[in-house]
């Protein structure tokens, strides 16, 4: 071992020595030290040192980890900041259109755009100056009107495809372009490897460069759409349910889509915490590919607006303008084989062609057109549109024609086979458009289609082609006016008016023939020019030339302003040039939608009358002009600009005050851009008229030009008047005018005849109108009205139905027809069918629902009716009609009160007041017995201080009359206390002829403010009468009290309720010659008739408790129209005071006969009697306090219909048990009770009591006798019509103490019974009619 050569150091040697030692110690294990094996070897010092090092290493490790964690957030922030998305600058924002691109996906998939290609697209778009926008911009554009940058473009990607994001983001980010990703959530949720994952979606949103929209969850799946297993798109096809052999219902379809939308939205919100703003239709399909799927389209669009702000489709269109429906915005679907330049070229062609399109470009540039289907070719400068072998036709849209609103178009075409058509103002999805069709059989037609509706025909005509077969077609479209010419000849006899609001839209060409592959047309020339504002005027002398009207009828569609020469102003004097008829020009301008601005030719501005502008403006306003065209181009001399400006300012100011416009033409020397700018800027209502196009002046400043156009101070170019014609149309017959004018005339003439009762004439006139406008529904309806008026109901119904066929949307007419069918011709089944049909067509339409409810009420199917009405009310709790209709159906008085309170709440809304007053009147709300609840509201309104005096006045009409009016006609006129519905207003020799019109069976003289009257009288002195003569009281719908006579010699007092005669008293009576005075009177529950002051019948008739209110009036009636009449000499009417007989508490009792004796003389004036029979004990119980039954008193009150309401003494409202009172009243056969209170209970108690009695047969009078001043406080509580008219409140009534002695009863009778009114206290001789005075006060007779 020692020999072993080793280069050990000293340290090694030392170690070795140690090892030697230890080896010796651990040689072989010795038997006596077995534990030696288990002794641990000495751990060398270095192990400990190493362990310490490990600790240090771990500390370092932990330190680094902690540092990484701690610095993570700032580092991440710094990195994000460095990498943050910086949007590219977009320049000024003043544009109103944008294009949108849709990429299905960016990937290596050969069917999709590759990454390189996308880079190319992006580079080309940037080169071409496109500016990216975001969804937020689009939203602001449509919802807040915020303009977009010029050449705005929205980039969007579909399907949430993974590669679209991973591959597109870096080119987009380096360009600073934002983009939109539409999330199809299904593959994301299913973890499809090609779809994005939510963390990436969140990262996209977090980067700021991306926005997300929704693209449905199941929208790309297909559903079984037919029983043969055809599968169609989920969102646009109802599902076929094979198990049930039917399609799903529209409700189920709607719910399916809604569920999908909600699901998608909820997922996106859950994962991204953001509401998706936009929706992209899967396959870009919202149902537009199926023409018949109107419901589907409407539903889909409705759902977009319900769940999102914006909706996108995709296809060949890229452009969206102000007029694009934000629920179906276009996106250009980028195709795989497009290079960047292709894409840009396509987009460039998509922008609106503001200057129209010229022939050459239209015929040679392929990109001008977007072929839709069929064959479209440009060959040899011709457009060939033809069907392919498989198709029946072809269609192409013009790129960039989206803003074609008002324009002139010229086509030269050859129609080989089929029907050629031009779409105007269309949307490419076929939702709305005007369609001008031209068949090879010589027919033309103009059809219109609105969004969500079926198309309808506006006009048809025939044309003749020339020998070559070439057709020159000229179309003019301005506002709602459309006119067409073929080969120079006007096509329709007149201008066609387009329905609805004119909106710009695209122009498209189509060809169609039923035979596949046959249709073909060639277009050789095509030109579209936007329509400029043009002013039509002519030299004054021409106005007399013949044929001006005819010329205008052909050409007027091209003009926007009509300025017939009117005045020539020279020096101080001015001369009116023409005796032209402003009416005629006004109407002419109306018909052609022109502005009517008469022309003033100023020749001199020296020393004109300072009041001239005012007078001119007054005259213009007087003739109904829209403004004045002031021609300053022929000013003599050269007045300084300051004077011209002063004149313009003065005139402009005068016109502005009358809301009129001013158009100015300056002398040629002043027609400069600078002058115009200065004028236009200082006078915003001014329009400048120039000879040339506006471009001539504002060529270099498109901004200026655009600004002028938008604020409608467009520069107008006057027509250079190539014609000099005379306005001979003054004496033209009706037939020379265009249809619009003629139809208006016919309508008015017919109305005149109808009102005059010349029904045959009206029928004839409206019949002519119907022939003139066979598509117009109105004349048919009017003719139906005539027949209905003549009770020829079957004929009327036929006409109404014809009218509905032409225009099915006339819901009021539907309701009317159904009512006629049901009520008048007894065809309830047809009526219900009709209503049910419309109920399906317009589900939820309240008018239809209510009409159905009314029909059901007539069937007495009140529950179903209630259900229908409740549906309307649930939908709109403030539907007054429904509430009114419902009221009659409510069986429970409490419900009725609730309903009335609900109606009251409707009226209590701020701003509702005047309208509500009219509604109360129109709906007869006051005729219900509960109407007193409305009264306090009405009284509040009357007392209200209002800025609008109409408000309280409207309510004043509703208050119950508080004066008696007495009218004689000696002055030859009638006061406004009466309201006459009469043929004549003739008042001769102090007699008023009240006569039915030829169209009516009765004439009516209503007493104003009578609807809420309870106890009142009506009196008439009549001289002569034809037919029946009636005095009506409380007349409502089927409810009335009437008193009168007929020609058969009987006099009647009748009470009708719900159109049934309830009680009738009559006797033979012949009206004596001369003046007869009839009087109808209601006192409480009793109704009396008087002839010349004497009772006509032995006993009054009783008015039942449920009898409602209504108006009071005088009315002759005869079964034939126009026969009934009466000559009235004097009429009077007004309230009757309330009289109560009460017996104050006294210890001794009056006997039955004594009471009878006291009351006998007051039977005709008393409404209620309150003998002191009951007493309230300490515990609140009420008991009978008298021993005798008082049979005579009971009989007296029963006979005279006086309410017997015995008094309850010492009543305390706190302990009073109303239940017990109701039981007592029933037991003792009483009308109710009079409660003598020592102090009046608080209002709350009354409210409570009102509610309590509402459904009980119990009436109460709360009485507090104020002995010290001889008055009584009375408050009524009754479920029936009360004694006092108006709102229920505590009234204070004077006491008339009646002597106990029987002999004084006579005196009392004289003092209190009012059969004839006293003379008015201060009736002056100057005002003999009318005489109004307060009626005698209400009184309490105290015995």
């Amino acid at each position: 071992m020692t020999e072993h050569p080793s280069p050990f150091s000293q340290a090694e040697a030392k170690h070795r020595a140690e090892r030697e030692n230890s080896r010796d110690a651990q040689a072989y294990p010795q038997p006596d030290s077995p534990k030696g094996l288990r002794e641990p070897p000495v751990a060398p010092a270095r192990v400990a040192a190493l362990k310490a090092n490990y600790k240090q290493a771990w500390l370092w490790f932990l330190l680094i980890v902690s540092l990484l964690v701690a610095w993570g957030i700032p580092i991440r922030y710094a990195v994000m900041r460095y990498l943050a998305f910086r949007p590219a600058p977009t320049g000024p924002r003043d544009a109103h259109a944008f294009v949108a691109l849709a990429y299905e996906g960016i990937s290596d998939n050969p069917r999709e755009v590759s990454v390189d290609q996308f880079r190319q697209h992006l580079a080309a778009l940037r080169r071409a100056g496109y500016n990216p926008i975001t969804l937020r911009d689009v939203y602001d554009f449509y919802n807040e009107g915020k303009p977009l940058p010029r050449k705005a473009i929205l980039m969007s990607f579909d399907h949430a495809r993974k590669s679209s994001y991973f591959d597109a983001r870096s080119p987009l980010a380096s360009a600073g372009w934002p983009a939109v990703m539409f999330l199809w959530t299904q593959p994301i949720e299913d973890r499809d490897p090609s779809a994005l994952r939510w963390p990436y979606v969140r990262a996209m949103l977090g980067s700021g460069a991306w926005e997300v929209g929704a693209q449905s969850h199941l929208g790309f799946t297909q559903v079984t759409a037919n029983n043969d297993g055809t599968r169609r798109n989920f969102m646009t096809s109802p599902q076929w349910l094979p198990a049930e052999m039917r399609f799903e219902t529209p409700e189920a379809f709607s719910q399916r889509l809604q569920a999908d939308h909600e699901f998608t939205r909820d997922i996106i919100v859950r994962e991204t915490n953001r509401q998706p703003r936009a929706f992209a239709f899967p396959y870009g399909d919202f149902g537009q590919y199926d023409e018949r799927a109107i419901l589907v389209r409407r539903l889909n669009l409705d759902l977009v607006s319900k769940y999102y702000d914006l909706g996108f489709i995709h296809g060949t269109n890229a452009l969206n303008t102000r007029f694009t429906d934000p629920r179906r915005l276009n996106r250009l679907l980028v195709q795989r084989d497009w290079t960047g330049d292709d894409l840009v070229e396509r987009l460039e062609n998509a922008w609106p062609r503001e200057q129209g399109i010229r022939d050459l470009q239209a015929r040679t540039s392929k990109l001008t057109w977007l072929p839709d289907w069929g064959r479209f070719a440009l060959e040899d400068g011709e457009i060939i549109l033809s069907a392919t072998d498989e198709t029946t036709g072809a269609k192409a849209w013009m790129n960039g024609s989206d803003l074609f609103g008002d324009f002139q178009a010229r086509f030269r075409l050859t129609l080989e086979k089929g029907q050629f058509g031009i779409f105007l103002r269309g949307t490419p999805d076929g939702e709305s458009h005007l369609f001008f069709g031209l068949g090879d059989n010589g027919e033309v037609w103009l059809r219109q289609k609105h969004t969500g509706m079926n198309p309808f025909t506006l006009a048809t005509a025939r044309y003749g082609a020339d020998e070559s077969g070439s057709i020159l077609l000229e179309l003019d479209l301005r506002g709602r006016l459309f006119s067409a010419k073929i080969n120079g000849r006007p096509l329709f006899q007149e201008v066609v008016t387009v329905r609805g609001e004119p909106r710009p839209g695209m122009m498209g060409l189509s060809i169609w023939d039923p035979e596949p592959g046959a249709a073909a047309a060639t277009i050789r020339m095509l030109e579209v020019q936007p329509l400029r504002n043009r002013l039509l005027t002519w030299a004054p002398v021409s106005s007399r030339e013949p044929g001006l009207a005819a010329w205008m009828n052909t050409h007027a569609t091209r003009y926007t302003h009509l300025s017939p020469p009117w005045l020539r102003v020279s020096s101080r004097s001015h001369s009116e040039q023409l005796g032209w008829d402003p009416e005629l020009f006004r109407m002419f301008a109306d018909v052609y939608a022109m502005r009517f601005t008469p022309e003033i030719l100023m020749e001199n501005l020296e020393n004109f009358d300072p009041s001239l502008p005012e007078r001119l403006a007054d005259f213009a306003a007087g003739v109904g002009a829209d403004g004045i065209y002031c021609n300053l181009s022929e000013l003599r001399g050269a007045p300084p600009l300051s004077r011209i400006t002063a004149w313009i300012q003065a005139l402009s100011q005068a016109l502005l005050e009358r809301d009129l416009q001013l158009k100015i033409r300056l002398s040629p020397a002043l027609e400069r851009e600078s002058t115009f700018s200065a004028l236009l800027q200082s006078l915003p209502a001014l329009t400048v008229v120039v000879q040339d196009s506006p471009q001539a002046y504002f060529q270099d400043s498109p901004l200026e030009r655009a600004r002028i156009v938008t604020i409608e101070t467009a520069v107008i170019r006057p027509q250079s008047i190539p014609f000099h014609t005379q306005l001979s149309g003054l004496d033209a017959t009706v037939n020379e005018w265009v249809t619009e004018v003629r139809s208006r005339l016919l309508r008015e003439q017919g109305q005149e005849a109808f009102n005059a009762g010349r029904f045959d004439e009206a029928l004839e006139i409206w019949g002519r109108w119907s022939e003139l406008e066979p598509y117009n529904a109105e004349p048919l309806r009017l003719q139906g009205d005539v027949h209905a008026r003549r009770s020829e109901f079957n004929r009327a119904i036929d006409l109404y139905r014809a009218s509905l066929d032409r225009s099915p949307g006339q819901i009021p007419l539907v309701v009317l027809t159904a009512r006629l069918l049901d009520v008048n011709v007894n065809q309830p089944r047809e009526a219900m069918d009709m209503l049910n049909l419309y109920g399906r067509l317009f589900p939820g339409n309240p008018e239809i629902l209510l009409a159905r409810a009314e029909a059901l009420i007539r069937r007495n199917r009140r529950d179903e009716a209630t259900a229908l009405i409740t549906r309307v009310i649930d939908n709109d709790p403030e539907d007054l009609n429904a509430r009114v209709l419902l009221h009659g159906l409510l069986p429970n008085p409490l419900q009725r009160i609730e309903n009335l309170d609900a109606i009251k709440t409707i009226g209590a809304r701020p701003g509702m007041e005047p309208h509500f007053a009219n509604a109360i009147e129109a709906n007869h709300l006051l005729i219900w017995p509960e109407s007193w609840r409305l009264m306090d509201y009405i009284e509040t309104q009357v007392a209200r201080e209002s800025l609008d005096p109409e408000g309280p006045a409207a309510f004043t009409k509703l208050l119950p009359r508080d004066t008696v009016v007495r009218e004689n006609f000696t002055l030859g006129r009638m006061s406004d206390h009466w309201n006459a519905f009469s043929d004549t207003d003739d008042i001769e020799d102090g007699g008023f002829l009240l006569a039915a019109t030829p169209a009516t069976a009765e004439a009516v003289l209503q007493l104003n403010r009578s609807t809420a009257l309870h106890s009142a009288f009506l009196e008439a002195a009549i001289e002569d009468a034809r037919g029946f003569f009636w005095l009506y009281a409380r007349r409502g719908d089927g409810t009335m009290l009437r008193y009168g006579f007929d020609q058969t010699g009987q006099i009647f007092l009748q009470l009708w309720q719900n159109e049934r005669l309830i009680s009738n008293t009559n006797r033979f009576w012949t009206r004596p010659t001369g003046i007869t005075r009839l009087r109808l009177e209601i006192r409480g529950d009793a109704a009396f008739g008087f002839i010349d002051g004497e009772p006509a019948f032995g006993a009054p008739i009783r008015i039942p408790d449920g009898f409602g209110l209504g108006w009071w009036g005088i009315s002759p009636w005869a079964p034939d129209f126009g026969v009934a009449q009466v000559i009235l000499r004097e009429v009077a009417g007004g309230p009757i005071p309330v009289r109560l007989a009460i017996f104050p508490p006294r210890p001794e009792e009056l006997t039955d006969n004594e009471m009878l004796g006291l009351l006998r003389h007051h039977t005709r004036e008393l409404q209620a009697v309150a003998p002191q029979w009951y007493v309230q004990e300490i515990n609140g119980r009420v008991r009978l306090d008298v021993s005798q039954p008082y049979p005579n008193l009971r009989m007296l009150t029963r006979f005279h219909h006086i309410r017997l309401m015995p008094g309850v003494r010492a009543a305390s409202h706190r302990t009073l048990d109303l239940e017990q009172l109701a039981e007592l009243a029933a037991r003792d056969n009483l009308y109710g009770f009079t409660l003598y209170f020592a102090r009046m209970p608080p209002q709350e108690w009354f409210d409570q009591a009102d509610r309590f009695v509402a459904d009980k047969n119990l009436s109460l009078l709360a009485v507090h006798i104020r002995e010290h001043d001889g008055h009584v406080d009375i408050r009524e509580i009754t479920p029936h019509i009360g004694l006092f008219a108006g709102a229920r409140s505590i009234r204070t009534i004077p006491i008339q103490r009646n002597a106990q002695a029987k002999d004084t009863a006579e005196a009392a009778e004289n003092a209190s019974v009012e059969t004839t009114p006293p003379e008015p206290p201060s009736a002056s001789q100057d005002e003999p009619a009318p005489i109004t005075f307060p009626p005698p006060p209400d009184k309490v007779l105290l015995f």
Partner: protein
Amino acid sequence: MSDPSASPRRPTPPRKKQGTVSRCAKCEISVYTIDSPAPAVCPFCHRALEHKHFDAPPPEKVAVEDDVEEHVRRLYRKPHPLLVGALGLIGTILLSIAVYFQVVNIEHYYYAPMVNIYSLIVGLFIVSRFILSSFYRAPLDVGYRPKISVLVPCMNEEEAIARSIARVYAEGYPDELREVITVNDGSTDNTLHEMLRAQAAFPRLVVANFEKNRGLCYGMAYSTLLARGEFCVFVDSDTFIMPGAIGKLVQGFVDNTVGGIAGHTDVENARVNVLTKMQDVRYFFSYKIMKAAESVYGCVSCLPGCFSAYRRACVLHVMDEWMNEKVFGQSGNYGDDRSLTNLILKDYRILYDDESLATTNAPEDWRTYTKQQSRWMRSSVRGILSATTFIWKKHPVPALSWYAMMMLPIIEPVIMVQALVIAPLMQGFITTSYLFGVSAITMIWSLYHFQKTGRTHWWTGFVFTFTYIVFYSWQIYYAIFTLATKSWGTRGAKKS
């Protein structure tokens, strides 16, 4: 031993030598010694041994017929430098692609979060192995010559044992500093006889004989207890030690904190078939890369029983614990090389010496291989689990690697299924990043193997990877569920 041919005299018939048999009746163990001192007490039960004498058989020359030079030359050849350069280039490219895939995967993380995070960690782990192993330096040969004991426990190895012993003696370590102890663990064949024959040739050889089979670890323990050297070098009966290997192996013990050192072992029978070739590549990788990387921080996870050295004091220190190890509360014979390593690792450093060469026989049929793999897997799971309780006290780098090593094989099959089965079924394509990553790594270490050894069967690395991923990775679960099993893969088969 002295070379008989060195004597100028005619050879005299060998004198019959007398040896001593020391037997413990209780333990039923005998120790045969000739020139070595006989033990006085039983190392297990500490009873006095009864001694008998026996006649050693006449010494025969044990043939060591191998041409060692040729052997080494065959094992390690230098490939052409250009080829090496090209391979390096390929490796670099592959590695870059794999890194690229990793980066892409981080971006697409959410599409396969499990696979991605797994392959990220695996990638980091394996790359860290390469990086760490590049810092590895074998212990310096300072000429340290301590007294050592070479211990050869074996069972039923009658064919190889004599040769094996002869090779130990031929290895070249100074005779006086080396003792050789061989243990016959109750063999049923002529192993004992072969041992005694070898003892006759090398009279200092100590032969211990278990009269009944006790298990390898008893053999190891018994021989360690018998040993008198400062360091124990364990050698398998089928291990062939290259000349100078033992001398090199103990150089690391110069450092007092080192408790054990693993030698480098190649597959002896590498040329037999694909299986052995494959194992050769695999051995090379696990030694040259894995052990080398672990050795940088002195945390080699396993000192293989076939050729490694222990500080005897350390083994004695943990022997009690090692022999009485309990798994799931069940005591039994679990101790093996790995658990011993763990116990030592707790307090000491364990190194690897890649210049100390040996070869060993690998299983030649798949059945044996499978059993061996299963046993290794079980012991590796056991070892890794038992070390988790203290490994965090080591340096963070080996500690974290250790935990990664613990988790990754468990997740691996799941990931494989996700990437190669579920993904194609659900999404229509195989997770390419996974496939590419695995291939790239296999490629790199296979090429490394080629570059270092010049052995042309480097491609069998792919076979290994494939078989491992598809079949053997699943053994981890089997191993987890059968942790308490004792059966011995390769040798148990013979026994039955």
